[in-house]
């Protein structure tokens, strides 16, 4: 295996040197093996993501290339409305004599539900993070932080069930929404699911603000509230922005809660009191049944690719923004 090189280099060495090298080599070997194993594990996960991406792309590709598929659906047709009785209709009816694949109601549904979730979750989580990192002391902090983070372990199906059974009735009774299961209910359920993530990342960011900032602010005569709001919070802004981006990614990709709580009617409107159908829910409900290779199948994979791209772009842009903020803050100090 290693004979040629060993033989060559071995000749000129003294026995002592040779011994030292073989010792080094043994240690090196073990280390190398560990290194290889770790690299392999890391690469396997990257490869898995790449393979998934390739697979999704491959399954969605006929939508762009296959004339057979274009007889039923084209990428432009997925955005254009259907004229019926003088009305422009945006319909998602893939199982039909004339299948209709308009994705706008699904995109709007996903965005609606995600925005509701962020509007509720972000202020709540950031406020909670501020409390835990700046105000809570000792025992209280030891209890509150893990308690909130424990929420991340609640299975989404449990959150969905709660939203479906309890939250939905309460919302309808309180706000008189047109549909019992609607974008608001689903968004609130999602908010519950993303709170722990946003909280946890934001809290870490606040905690990472150097103690000297706070001391300096206090020394300059600011009150506690001024210190927290005008010094600590801005200094932690990049981290909090990262928390929001993570929360967005989790919310738009979440499936179970929205399947259970949104009612899944593909309506194109801005109302929060009506049912909404998200991209993830559509894939979850329909992929089980489609004939492999049919236009419907390709469209579902295209939806998946779209979702993948959307979260990827948001993460990328988010990272840029966070980087920019960090640099500006760094230059200022």
């Amino acid at each position, binding site marked *: 295996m290693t004979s040629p090189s060993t033989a060559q280099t071995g000749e000129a060495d003294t026995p002592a040197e040779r011994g030292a090298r073989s010792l080094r080599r043994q240690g090196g070997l073990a280390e190398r093996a560990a290194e290889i194993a770790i690299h392999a594990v890391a690469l396997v996960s990257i*490869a898995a993501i790449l*393979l998934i991406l390739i697979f999704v792309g491959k399954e969605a590709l006929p939508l762009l290339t296959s004339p057979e598929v274009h007889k039923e659906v084209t990428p432009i047709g997925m955005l254009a409305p259907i004229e019926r009785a003088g009305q422009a*209709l945006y319909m998602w*009816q893939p199982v039909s004599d004339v299948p209709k694949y308009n994705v706008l109601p699904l995109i709007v549904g996903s965005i609606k539900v995600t925005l509701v979730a962020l509007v509720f979750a972000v202020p709540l989580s950031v406020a909670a993070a501020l409390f835990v990192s700046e105000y809570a002391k000792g025992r209280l902090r030891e209890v509150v932080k893990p308690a909130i983070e424990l929420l991340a372990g609640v299975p989404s199906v449990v959150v969905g069930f709660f939203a479906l059974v309890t939250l939905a009735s309460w919302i309808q009774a309180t706000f008189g929404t047109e549909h019992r299961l609607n974008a608001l209910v689903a968004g609130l359920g999602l908010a519950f699911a993303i709170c722990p993530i946003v909280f946890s990342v934001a809290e870490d960011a606040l905690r990472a603000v150097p103690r000297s900032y706070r001391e300096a602010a206090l020394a300059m005569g600011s009150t506690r509230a001024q210190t927290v709001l005008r010094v600590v919070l801005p200094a932690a802004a990049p981290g909090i922005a990262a928390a929001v981006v993570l929360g967005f990614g989790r919310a738009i990709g979440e499936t179970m809660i929205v399947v259970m709580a949104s*009612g899944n009617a593909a309506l194109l409107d801005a109302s929060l009191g009506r049912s909404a159908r998200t991209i993830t829910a559509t894939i979850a409900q*329909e992929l089980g049944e489609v004939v*492999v290779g049919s236009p419907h199948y390709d469209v579902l994979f295209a939806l998946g690719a779209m979702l993948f791209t959307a979260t990827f772009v948001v993460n990328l842009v988010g990272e840029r923004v966070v980087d920019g903020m960090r640099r500006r803050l760094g230059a200022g100090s």
Partner: protein
Amino acid sequence: MTFSRTYDHDHEPDGSGGLRMRFAFPLLLLPLVTALLGCARTEHASGGAGDAGSASESSTLSLKGSDTMVILGQRWAEAYMKANPGATIQVTGGGSGTGIAALINGTTDICESSRPMKDKERDDVQAKRGAPAVETKVALDALAVYVSASNPLTEISIPSLRGVYLGETKGWKAIGGPDHAIVLYGRENNSGTYGYFKEHVLENKDFAPAVQTLAGTSAVVSAVKGDPFGIGYGGIAYLEGIRALKVKKDDASPPIAPSLQTAQDGSYPIARFLYFYTAGEPTGLGKRFIEWVKSAAGQSVIEQVGYYPLPKG
């Protein structure tokens, strides 16, 4: 080979080992990738080669499909396994479409379906499994139209029901109910119940976009239970905490309540058969199980679940 050669380079003193190592890792992944591809391929192959006979040699039998039938299938399986120790029967739901897809792909022995197979699906079974799809009627279901227990409406005609689900009739008042908008609940489109309703009530027209599609009949039932102005549809067996409307074939016909008698004599307008499908004539355990299901012992299970046994003769 590749592996050992890379290893060699690592011991060269010039330090280029690291770079080569990075090169080598994708190579290490190759076996994994090929293994994955291989799996995918063999699965296809077995789907093509395996006929109905292949699974029946063992004493395990899988049933997959209709959510309407999943409880029924489980009760059948329990009763059969009790009477025949040694036989294992697994029952899963997912929807009739899912079950039919599984039959086509060869991942289930028996497909449970609450709607008849389409010609296209029969062709797919023939093409992929090399045997025709064999249909067995196993039970009878009256498709119930659910409303909340507090809804004063007692009957509905098929044409009005169609108007409601096409989105043409928007208020309860137009069909004799309270003065409030109708909230529509239905099933997701892989459901046999969805397909049956679309064909037999909507005359194959599209459901209104406002229909909320829920996973499983029990989800529809719980939604209607919680919504005084909701309407839904599903198997008669799920009737709990809600009411089933009497159904009129058309506006002039008498209203018929769903029941064993009206379903068996065909007077209830939206009664349907529930089916088992196999690829080719069932053999072995599959054959024994299906025969048992059709026997008096098997048929007596049906009423416990809430559906109706097949008409005699």
